[in-house]
Structure formats: C-alpha cells, structure tokens
C-alpha cells in the first residue's frame, strides 16, 4: 500500500511549480493528482492519457444506427400488420428514426465513456479528497511507491 502525501496550495502557479518539481524528482505523471475547482489547463497531468470519448461517440452512433434499422425494418415486417398489400418499410421515414437513435447512441456512449475515464460514480471515489478545494485551494496528492518518494514528496509539498 503506497503512501499518499497531500498538500494544499493557495494559487495555481505554486501548485504547478510543485507539480513540476515532483516530476523532476522522479515522480511518474500518474502518481501526481492535482485537485482544483476549475480546470488548470497548464497542468500536464491531463495530457497524460488520451481520451476515448470521441471514438466512443462514433461507436455509439454506429450502434444506434444499426439498432434503429433493426428495430424499424425487422419489427415492422415481423409484427404482421394488415396493410392490404401497401408497402410498409419506408426508407425515408425510417432514416429519421435512425438519425435520432444514432444521436442517442452517441450521447449515451460518450457519457458512459466520460464517467468511466474520469472515475466518477464509483464507490469510494471521494477517498482522496480535501474539501478545501471548494474554497479555491489547489490540492496535490502524490502517490509514493517508496519511502524515498514519501520523503521527497513531503519535502516538495511541504512548501505549499
């Protein structure tokens, strides 16, 4: 069980400086977590992993469209409505349903992807949290795999 060191900073530059120093000290990017109440675009932490939200949206869209075609065409033919020989499958009309379900699929999949990637909605998500973030403070957590790193972290973050 690695040790976790955390510190509270008043301002973004100080927190960023601490982050940079930790990185220099040999911390992995993943091991440092910056908590803030607004996005810090200068932080390098975010760039650490690529987001799949876009791809998932496309995937969701494709699945939505496919299910729409299945839902409309197959069920309409299967349900056995008496139509007196009139054609019942209408590509134009069904295209509209397909569009809506494409979008629905994209929305749901990107939401799911976002929740998964950002670790929201999980049990114990709030384990490592400090509510001073709400006051505008910047909080840094550093996961230390060794005592040496704990020492380093405490040294660096002690400034905050």
């Amino acid at each position, binding site marked *: 069980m690695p040790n976790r060191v955390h510190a509270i900073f008043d301002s973004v530059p100080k927190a960023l400086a601490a982050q940079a120093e930790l990185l220099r000290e040999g911390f992995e990017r993943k091991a440092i977590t910056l908590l803030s109440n607004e996005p810090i675009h200068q932080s390098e932490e975010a760039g650490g992993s690529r987001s799949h939200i876009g791809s998932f949206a496309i995937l969701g869209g494709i699945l939505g469209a496919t299910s729409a075609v299945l839902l409309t065409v197959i069920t309409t033919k299967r349900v056995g*409505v*008496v*139509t*007196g*020989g*009139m*054609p*019942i*499958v*209408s*590509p134009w*009309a069904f295209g509209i349903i397909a569009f809506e379900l494409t979008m629905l699929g994209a929305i749901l999949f990107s939401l799911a992807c976002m929740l998964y990637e950002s670790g929201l909605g999980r049990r114990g998500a709030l384990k490592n949290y400090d509510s001073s973030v709400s006051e505008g403070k910047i909080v840094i957590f550093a996961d230390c795999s060794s005592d040496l790193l704990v020492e380093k972290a405490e040294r660096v973050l002690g400034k905050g």
Partner: protein
Amino acid sequence: MEEKVESKKPQWAMVIDLDRCTGCEACVVACHAENNIRIAGEGPAAGGRSVNWIRVERYYEGEYPDIRVKFMPVMCQHCEEAPCEPVCPVYATYHTDEGLNGQVYNRCVGTRYCANNCPYTVRFFNFLDPVWPEPLSKSLNPEVSVRYRGVMEKCTFCIQRIRKGEDKAKDEGREIRDGDVNPACVQSCTARAMTFGNIADPTSEVARLSKSGRASRLMEELGTKPRVTYLSRGD
C-alpha cells in the same frame, strides 16, 4: 423500395351519380341506424361534434335568381393511397386487402392526426362518451361496436355487411357478384344514385360506371386515388 402487392380479394368501390342524387339524406339516417352512430345532442352539435359518416354537401352556384345547387354525398373515400394511414402512430387506421381504410377502435389512442390529414374531412372523433337513453340503446346494431370516447371513427363501407355478403357467397361456393353487398346508404338510396361493388371485377356495375365519361374522383389531384367515383350532373 417495396412495391405494392396486388390483392386477389374483391376490391370494394362505390359510384355516386350526382345526376340522380336528390339530397334527401336518406343515406345519412340509414348510416346512423346501421352503424350505431351517436346522437350528439343540440349543444355538442353546435360545438361541431355531430357525427355523420356520410353527409350531403351543398354548394350554391350563381346569384339569385339564376342560382343552382349542387348536392354531393361525401363519406370516407377509401383512398388507395390514403393520407390518413401512414400518419397513425399505432396502426389504428390501416389498409385492408379489399382496399378499405380500416379503423381499429381499440387500437386508437386518439391523436386525431388521421383526421387532420384527411382532405375530405370524413373522420369523426368521439370527444365524449355517447348517450343512449333507455330504451333507445335497444336499436343498436349488435354487429357494429359502439364507440366510446377518445377514438376516431368513420365510414367503413359497412364492413359488417361486406363480411356477411362474402360469407354468403362462400357458403354458396361462388364468387362475389353485384348485389351481394350493399352498404346501408346504397340500400336506402331513394333515387338509386349509389352503386357499390367489386371494382376488380370488370363486369361489375361499379367498374362499368367508373369508366363513364362523367366519372371523376374528389380532389384527384392530391393523388389519394379515392375508391369513390362521382358521376357529374348534366348531359
């Protein structure tokens, strides 16, 4: 795109000779009696709630004293390309193999969309429950459902009579022929202005009359292909 499948069943159609029609409205009451059409009452009728599956429209032409009147009985035209059918979200209105525009009362949820898309304004909605004071309800036709509030209704070409006629023909082991089926309006018509029959049978009277030089269909330009043909007045 799918193509329309031709049915081998009889294709019901009507021809109305406007030169014979006198506007007497016998058909209207005959229809009320046969199809259990509600009595709206004065108040609802004033609010546009009276129901006439078949009505006799009246139009004036000219100015006094050279004025002329046109009577035109209008009921559901049983369009081959019915605008009411595709808009129903629950298939309550549908097309039968015999070319009728069917209406399943129990399916209807009452969006009234079909009525709004009917260029002939022949669809009637049950805004409230019908009232049949005793013993008036005894005159209800047991073969036709009484429609309660919230559903759309319209002319069925007396589907119950069509079924009976077809059953009879089947029992006798023959094809359907002229005279087997007559809706209540056609049956009662005092000037014999209406003819009903199987238009798919080229020897039938409706098939013959619908090819008349006087024949036209109401608002044909909309492409609805009505199954009711009107024969115009005059020579």
